[in-house]
């Protein structure tokens, strides 16, 4: 039996400064993040939730209409937190532009922003969203006006991408390979060339045929212009990384009771341990606990009997609903037990499924109550 994750204790603790919700796609991370933030605000903490790519109706439930990249006060009738709940949607392109503007002189910034390669990197590189989410978190933390920052993570294939992607982007930006491609001898030195051998010249040639010399030239110009600010970038990323490892941060791994989602959750738990990052626990969304203890065999036998007699269809249906539910709950418990066996020290809270999608603040509050085990 897993330890219980006490969500309210976590939210109320003034030492909790940042909560990061991570997990694989489709498990309800964004909803969980929003529900936690709403609950924390109701319980008296000045809270901001940073959402990444929320579903339209969820965004609307927080009063967010556009990606404007700054925290907005959530004003919804009947939800009185005296202005303690704020929400924002990440605009990764704008966050990147702002970083460039802040770090480069105006002339150089213009050069970078106008470069076609920068436009590719800032809008479609698979690690940019993660990197910018980290950057925004860093900014919000530095701002100092929040008791609690709740962060949603990008909807990536794997939960681990959140930790790995910034590193990937750094590799691209730090320019070693681009210098190799544009002028191998100068940048890499003899040693590296020797390893790769004569193939490298051919490789460079092939690459420039495939992707076009122009793109390579753009990339090269970009990296040169970017070079002087790269140190600053890396320093900031390093700082955010330290923030993630600090005791004020709590990671919540979000999963659904499905084998894939729990496998991802397992990987993530191991990874957090390896990085010495503070894990608060597992949020298991959309569970179906049974609400009556009647054993499934008796329920089905009675349903069959009623069906034969044919005079109590409602009771028979109720019994079959229950039998289905027991089967689902049993499977969910078995999956959770497998996770718990591998990670006995991870505290867990199950969030019973709502029958319908959440699309307003009332729904988020209900999720919040279920998160807290009310």
């Amino acid at each position, binding site marked *: 039996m897993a330890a219980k994750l006490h969500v309210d204790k976590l939210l109320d603790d003034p030492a909790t400064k940042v909560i990061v919700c991570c997990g*694989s*796609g*489709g*498990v309800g991370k964004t909803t969980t993040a929003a529900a936690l933030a709403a609950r924390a605000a109701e319980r008296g903490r000045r809270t901001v939730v940073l959402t990444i790519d929320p579903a339209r109706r969820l965004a609307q439930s927080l009063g967010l209409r556009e990606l404007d990249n700054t925290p907005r006060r959530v004003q919804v009738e009947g939800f009185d937190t005296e202005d303690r709940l704020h929400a924002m949607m990440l605009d990764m392109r704008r966050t990147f532009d702002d970083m460039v503007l802040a770090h480069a002189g105006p002339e150089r910034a213009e050069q970078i922003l106008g470069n076609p390669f920068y436009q*590719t*990197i800032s809008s*479609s590189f698979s690690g940019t969203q993660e990197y910018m989410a980290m950057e925004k978190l860093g900014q919000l933390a530095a701002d100092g006006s929040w008791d609690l920052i709740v962060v949603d993570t990008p909807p990536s*294939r794997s939960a681990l991408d959140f930790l790995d992607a910034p590193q990937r982007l750094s*590799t*691209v930006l730090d320019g070693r*390979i*681009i210098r190799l491609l544009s002028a191998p001898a100068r940048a890499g030195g003899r040693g590296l060339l020797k*390893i*790769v051998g004569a*193939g*490298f010249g*051919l*490789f460079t*040639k*092939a*690459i420039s*045929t*495939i*992707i*076009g010399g122009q*793109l*390579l030239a753009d*990339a090269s110009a970009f990296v040169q212009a970017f070079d002087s600010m790269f140190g600053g970038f890396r320093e900031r990323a390093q700082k955010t990384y330290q923030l993630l490892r600090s005791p004020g941060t709590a990671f919540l791994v979000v999963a*659904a009771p*499905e*084998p*894939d*989602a729990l496998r991802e959750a397992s990987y993530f738990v191991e990874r957090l341990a390896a990085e010495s990052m503070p894990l608060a626990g597992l949020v298991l969304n959309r569970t179906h606990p*049974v*609400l*009556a*203890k*009647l054993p499934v065999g008796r329920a089905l036998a*009675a349903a069959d*009997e*009623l069906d034969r007699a044919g*005079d*109590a*269809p*409602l*009771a*028979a*249906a*109720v*019994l*079959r*609903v*229950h039998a*289905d539910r027991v*089967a*689902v709950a049993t*499977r969910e418990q078995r999956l959770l037990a497998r996770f718990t066996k591998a990670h006995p020290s991870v505290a867990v809270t199950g969030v019973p499924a709502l*029958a*319908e*999608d959440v699309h307003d603040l009332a729904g988020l509050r209900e999720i919040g109550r279920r998160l807290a085990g009310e």
Partner: protein
Amino acid sequence: MATPRLDAVTTPIVGWTEELSRARLHVVTGKGGTGKTTVSAALAIALATGGRRVLLVEVEERQGIAQLFDRPPLPYSEERIASAPGGGEIRALAVDADAAFMEYLAMFYNLGFAGRTLRRMGAIEFVTTLAPGLRDVLQTGKVKECVGRTEATGRHMYDHVVLDAPPTGRVVKFLDVTKAVQDVAKVGPIKGQSEGVVRLMHSGDTAVHLVTLLEEMPVRETLDAVVELDGADLRPGAVFVNRVRPARLADRSVPAAADGRVDAARVRAGLAAAGLKLADDEVQGLVEETVEHAVRLRAETRARELLAEADLPAVELPELVDGVDVGALYELAEVLVDQGVR
């Protein structure tokens, strides 16, 4: 082993069509978490039933096929992974973009030997970052090659190829290589290869199937994807309604029950008739479960109505409560065959 609940499957408006049977490349997409990989595998077995050879391809580097068939990770080669009733055969391929790139460099530029070192340095990843469309072109190019490959007799190597594609949000970008190639390759063999991909993807040989659940969000994503596919002149195939659960309440009882009106006294009397005497809170628990069931049914009905807007052939697959193992895949395939998939 799991027994599919056939009683959950209702007759769809339009089932599998002749036109779909003529497709040779079946692309399977859907919102994350809807069961794309499971549906792809079941479809591959269904299509192989009766003695055909089918290739099941994945491109997301997740090794989802290997996990599903309970096998070690697939190498970058076409491996026989299962047989189908009637002498059919299923092979599987996990397309790794880096490996496809190396294969490509080796083929056209005689550059096989430096590959591993370059890969270790991150050079391949770097290039695919420079030109993000390149990854997709390499992967779809490999798929095209498999679809077009013939044996010495002139017969197609594979009767069908089933592609477990990226999720709906990314699928059009992935399949519509025209745009990617304009951005990337202006000359050279990649351009030639991608012209062939464009022809295949936009031809009657290809159908893009959409997997959904009977929930609002996946259905909305499905509808959005249909619009997007139409806009890119790619052909939507069938909708696979996955994980359909049985309805236990009669249709006419659903609205009241979903509003919380389940007559506890009548339930109690019915239970008593079957010899079940339960405490009040037990009965209350059963009633609450039934109300939740009714709310779900009501949401499913709305989802079905919404889905009808897509006006596509549809097939349904039941929820497997015990999870999906290899045996269950065969049962799902049988359900598909019963609904006309061939």
